[in-house]
């Protein structure tokens, strides 16, 4: 009964790194779990997967996946991933990082990677705050909520990430909560098979630093919040999908076809090479 090696997802993890550093009930573990499940079901060659993360709690994820992985500077995982993907297009490059990392300090890289339709998958763990530094407000903190830097309630409007991604040109965009593990796994699988820039927002619970200060002391309570507040509305207008404390619209929002950066780059290189062999250039 206690045979650890028997855990079906053991092979996707760096066993010597588990247990991970995340708190009790932290959604990051579930995201890692769903990611492992997605890899399992697609049975992708793990040698060809690169997991890139930034700074923050979820940034540690790259240290746990049994793939090539890189833990970059704050906000830069997408820029780093750009280099990896372009240098070796065979690799599946997945960026898993937090809302602060990807959309505050790293916002510029996100919008441009999406605009380019670069062939990478970005999974954002949105816990509404900066967890690693102790629960400060961030670009996704809902209005009015309490954080250690909004002691009088947050007065900043929050980013609607799926709307942002859609507006920037992502070819696949979805939002789930960590309670929607099945859907989330399916979305990750879709994204992994999608040509171009795909984005998945995972509304993730941080009971320690978000829940505790907003009347949800336990992870269970946060999960129940997700249960009550979330409504599945596939392909509804992402502009109308702002997250409030009452309502979390989840589902797939965008799933379109558009020539990816990788494809256009290949074609351009071919043209250039031809030109050169004609003795031009």
């Amino acid at each position: 009964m206690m045979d650890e090696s028997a855990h079906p997802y053991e092979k996707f993890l760096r066993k010597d790194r588990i247990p991970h550093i995340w708190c009790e009930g932290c959604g990051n573990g579930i995201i890692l779990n769903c990611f492992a499940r997605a890899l399992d079901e697609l049975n992708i060659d793990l040698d060809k997967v690169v997991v890139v993360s930034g700074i923050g709690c979820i940034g540690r994820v790259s240290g746990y996946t049994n793939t090539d992985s890189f833990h970059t500077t704050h906000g830069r995982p997408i820029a780093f991933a750009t280099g990896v993907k372009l240098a070796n297009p065979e690799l599946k490059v997945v960026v898993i990082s937090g809302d602060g990392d990807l959309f505050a300090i790293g916002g510029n890289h996100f919008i441009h990677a999406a605009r380019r339709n670069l062939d990478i998958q970005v999974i954002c763990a949105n816990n509404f705050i900066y967890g690693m530094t102790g629960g400060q407000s961030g670009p996704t903190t809902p209005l009015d909520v309490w954080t250690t830097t909004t002691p009088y309630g947050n007065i900043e409007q929050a980013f609607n990430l799926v709307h942002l991604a859609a507006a920037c040109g992502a070819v696949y965009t979805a939002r789930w909560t960590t309670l929607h593990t099945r859907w989330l796994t399916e979305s990750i699988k879709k994204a992994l098979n999608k040509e171009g820039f795909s984005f998945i927002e995972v509304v993730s619970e941080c009971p320690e630093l978000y829940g505790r200060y907003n009347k949800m002391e336990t992870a269970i309570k946060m999960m129940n919040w997700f249960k009550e507040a979330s409504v599945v509305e596939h392909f509804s207008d992402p502009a109308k999908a702002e997250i409030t404390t009452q309502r979390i619209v989840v589902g797939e929002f965008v799933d379109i076809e558009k020539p990816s950066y990788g494809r256009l780059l290949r074609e351009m290189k071919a043209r250039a090479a031809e030109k050169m062999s004609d003795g031009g250039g």
Partner: protein
Amino acid sequence: MTTVSVQKPKIVRSGRRFISGDIACAEGALAAGCRFFAGYPITPATEIAENMSRRLPEIGGTYIQMEDEIASMAAVIGASYAGVKAMTATSGPGFSLMQENIGLAIMTETPCVIVNVMRGGPSTGQPTMPGQQDVMQARWGSHGDYEIIALAPSSVQEMFDLTVDAFNLAETYRLPVFVLADEIVGHMWERVTIPEVESLKIVNRKKPTVPPGNDFAPFKPDWDLVPPMAVFGEGYRFHATGLTHDERGYPRTDSAEAQTELVQRLCDKIRKNKQRIVRVENALLEDAEVAVVAYGIAARAALSAVRKARAAGIKAGLLRPVTLWPFPDEHVAEVARRVRAIVVPEMNCGQIVREVERAAKETPVIFLPKLGEEPHKPDEILDAMRGMRK
């Protein structure tokens, strides 16, 4: 490894050619096997990017213009980890933006080349004017403690040669290597000789000798303190992080030993290999009584000043550090012992001169600052030397 493609014909257009320093730099990179360039337009380095954007696709390489220099540097590190020789080129402001990720490159021991075609600063300063103001930034620009390698070309030919060297050093020692050019060298057109590829010495990073598996530690150094480098996609499934890490690449954020072991090694792999790295160029130094220590564009004025001095009966000589970092202080010290004084012309308010003074001990050092459009005139340097007689 993509560097084998160097052997393909027509990749390097060898022979005698009349080109600009920036173009020469790009050609040197291609000759060295660079197949990835990420950058952001900035005067006076833009032509390097433009040239790469035209040449890389022709030979199967990748050029991408990123959203800023921060991204450019990150992408270069990513490309290098994916096994491709990568570079970026910029100038002061962009160089500042790159500093954090340069630190990451140092920490993750990423071979890559950063060309800084220096212009007048601080801040936006004088974009189209030359300068040598980023020399100390190159040494200390990123936070934390580290050693670095920086080369200073003083001619279009050297823009080619030193770029090749920069890649070789980066690949040898697994770190970012700077080419510290300046606006004049970058924009100047000269006749250069581009050698046949076969005749070029190209170094590629060491590969791990163990197959993928548990006994592979991505940051376990060899005798030369440099760990062999596995790259993504080869099956080693390794982890790299900007956090202090152990030989397996796993974070060690709570251990003094780990911090000491790692940071010390990062410094030592340069310090202990200094002899192999450092390069200087001497002119007429054998019997010199007065020495000029100059680098980059300033060294060219210095050389003619030295010749003029000789013509005027002054026993002058020139010491030109090709590697600014590590600084050739032994060479300076040796010269200092023989000469009466040392003249240091720099296109800044005094940066390398500090290193010279440190090495020269009691020997007096005359500093000739220069800011703005023109480099030093040979006579300015000559005058300084005249002042040293009696």
